[in-house]
């Protein structure tokens, strides 16, 4: 659980530092006025609420995955079971397709980044291509993950057979579920860009946020894969 404590402490530490920077030490009973130009910079609301909302959400998802990975490490620990013959952890032989999937996800992330920059620089064709590529490669990643699951099943790595298998399915499955949620938002943003019906600013924000989410899920995937491979 040290990992959990450390990461939570980190998140909370950042939070407290941030708040301290927001004059958590001010003496509110002294002085009156609206403090224009001081704390009110906050109220002029850059970044927009949706973006802050996404970052808060990413903190929640981070907490979720860190806890899962902690459970993984604890369950694997040889200290858990004292007698050798009761140790039941048999590492999964990760199917090679996972490496291809990693590349697909990374390309998807690059696609989203192209879309984001395209919208920023008003290169709409490039943006649309990037956006489509971002989603398509994410979908390809999910298909690849499905293939990896099927290969594991075919090789006899059933979820109930061994905790390592079970964790593999849980970790990859929950990661895929998060990506699926991102794809729903992506589909809406893509429809907007293709139709061109909604104001640029709105679309740009969705594309921006999707890009952040894609990068984030890529980072989570790399950490997950690293954990799965080294154990």
């Amino acid at each position: 659980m040290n990992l959990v404590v450390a990461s939570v402490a980190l998140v909370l530490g950042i939070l407290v530092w941030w708040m301290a920077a927001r004059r958590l030490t001010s003496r509110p009973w002294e002085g009156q006025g609206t403090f224009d130009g001081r704390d009110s910079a906050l109220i002029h609301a850059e970044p927009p609420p949706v973006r802050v909302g996404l970052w808060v959400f990413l903190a929640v998802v981070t907490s979720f995955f860190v806890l899962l990975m902690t459970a993984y490490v604890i369950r694997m620990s040889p200290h858990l079971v004292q007698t050798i013959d009761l140790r039941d952890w048999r590492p999964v032989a990760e199917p090679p397709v996972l490496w291809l999937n990693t590349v697909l996800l990374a390309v998807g992330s690059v696609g989203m980044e192209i879309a984001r920059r395209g919208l920023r620089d008003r290169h709409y064709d490039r943006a649309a291509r990037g956006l489509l590529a971002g989603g398509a490669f994410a979908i390809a990643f999910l298909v690849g993950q499905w293939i990896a699951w099927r290969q594991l099943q075919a090789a006899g790595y059933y979820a109930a057979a061994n905790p390592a298998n079970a964790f593999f399915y849980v970790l990859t499955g929950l990661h895929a579920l998060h990506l699926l949620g991102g794809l729903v938002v992506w589909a809406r943003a893509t429809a907007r860009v293709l139709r061109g019906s909604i104001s640029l600013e709105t679309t740009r924000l969705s594309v921006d946020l999707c890009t952040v989410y894609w990068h984030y899920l890529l980072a989570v995937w790399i950490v997950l894969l690293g954990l799965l491979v080294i154990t």
Partner: protein
Amino acid sequence: MSYVAIADRHAHLHDPQTFITKYVWSQDHKVIAIQYMGTAMAIGVVAIALSILMRLQLGFPGTFNFINPENYYQFVSMHGMIMVIYLLTALFLGGFGNYLIPLMCGARDMVFPYLNMVSYWVYLLAVLVLVASFFVPGGPTGAGWTLYPPQAILEGTPGADWGITLMLISLIIFIVGFTMGGLNYVVTVLQARCRGMTLMRMPLSVWGIFTATILALLAFPALLVSSIMMALDNHLHTSFFMPALISLGDQTVHKGGSPLLFQHLFWFFGHPEVYIVALPAFGIVSDLISTHARRHIFGYRMMVWAILAIGILSFVVWAHHMYVSGMNPYFGFFFATTTLIIAIPTAIKVYNWVLTLWRGDVHLTLPMLFAIGFVFTFINGGLTGLFLGNVTVDVPLSDTMFVVAHFHMVMGVSPVLVVCGAVYHWYPKMTGRMLDERLGRLHFWLTLIGTYAIFLPMHYLGILGVPRRYFALGDTYFAPDSVHSMNAAISIAAIVVAFAQMIFLFNLFWSLRNGKPSGPNPWRATTLEWQTPETPPRHGNWGPELPVVYRWAYEYGAPGNKDDFVPQNQPPDQGTAVAVGHGRNVG
């Protein structure tokens, strides 16, 4: 620089047109708040009924034949789970959080109103799934509110077929719904405060709810992880938590899982959960005490820092629930230390409440009575927490009625007293009418004296060694006859207290039509929610202009002012000059 607040940037404010969008599928934070409160109180009544059934069995064993041991475990489990999660968490964050955050921060609504609406309906779904478990074959789970494996999913535990599955599904749904709401509360506090409302000018209620929401957002994932993994253990026969064991004479399919891992995950959620309930209560009670004692809160900054410190510390004390679990004994030292450290910021808060009352112009209104009742009860419960936080004292007291008495005092009765005080305080804003004073006083005294009649003797039972979770004591050699008569007395007190809550609920409905009209600001309070143009506030809360805040929330009894309070949004040049910060002991 042109100033456009977030709330005013949206071209349209999702104006409700029909009855349905106004009161059912509403995106207005005030309606959603009342929906949350109503649902939470309704399921709370179920939990009260369950506690009465438990007390009937404990007080008069053998008298009520319809209660068998299986039922008893189901009552215990569902009572605990409903009270902690579906009542208190939902009421404080979904209810008061929704109602107070936009009004107190000077916003027109939450920043994501649609998400806010979905959050409520997902919560309602979670409650309905929970209720459904009463009607499935085998009934609800009887695994205890902690749902410890392996017993939670083994044959022989009540509700092992359907109950536990529905419980886990309901929890997962609840967490998803809460995350939607929680994002709203956090981002609204951070982004949608009106002009002049700096963080350090926010009322402590908002601070408490805000910090508790952050705790909940970071801690609920632990419950989510453990719920998912336990559901897989149950249905896919994985072995995350399930060790190899023999159940009903047969070797189960599980092998090598760690029940201790579940306990770590559960309490990594479970202990912050205590503060998820306590911090909003701390915040709200600070505002009640200050307003009704006509005195600024003592040590505002200390109060804010203490809330933050408690929030952070609450993540490193979880294993004090596990001293007897078989974990590494060296952990006990670490967790006992952190547990005792958390007493420091908590004690600071208690001192500050008392010092706010000291030489205040204390009005013994209903909210104030409940607030004082809370401070008493919280000190009581907190002190027994010092006992249980020490490993050597905890070990003999583990799994006795002492623990039950402790946590009911500290996170049952105390927050409920705050909830009641808060409802008496804000009901006039929600409805435009006062709650009936006589019924309220009856409710208060019955509740306060009644809960002490229940839980003070229960400490004594615990010290005698009477175990918790036992269906019946039978002829136990260490339990003298007085234990049985005390149990009967506790049960009678519990029935009286339950009855007193019905008075409260009756008052809520009765005063809706028959209460005295309250006017916009019956308590002469400074915070923004009392300064709305209409009472109850209309959709959008404020008139054409958002309020502007010029001072902190505790400007009571200021000398040289025509009234004894100055609203946060009153410009400095209105009325006589206000002397601020002259040699006043505000910490």
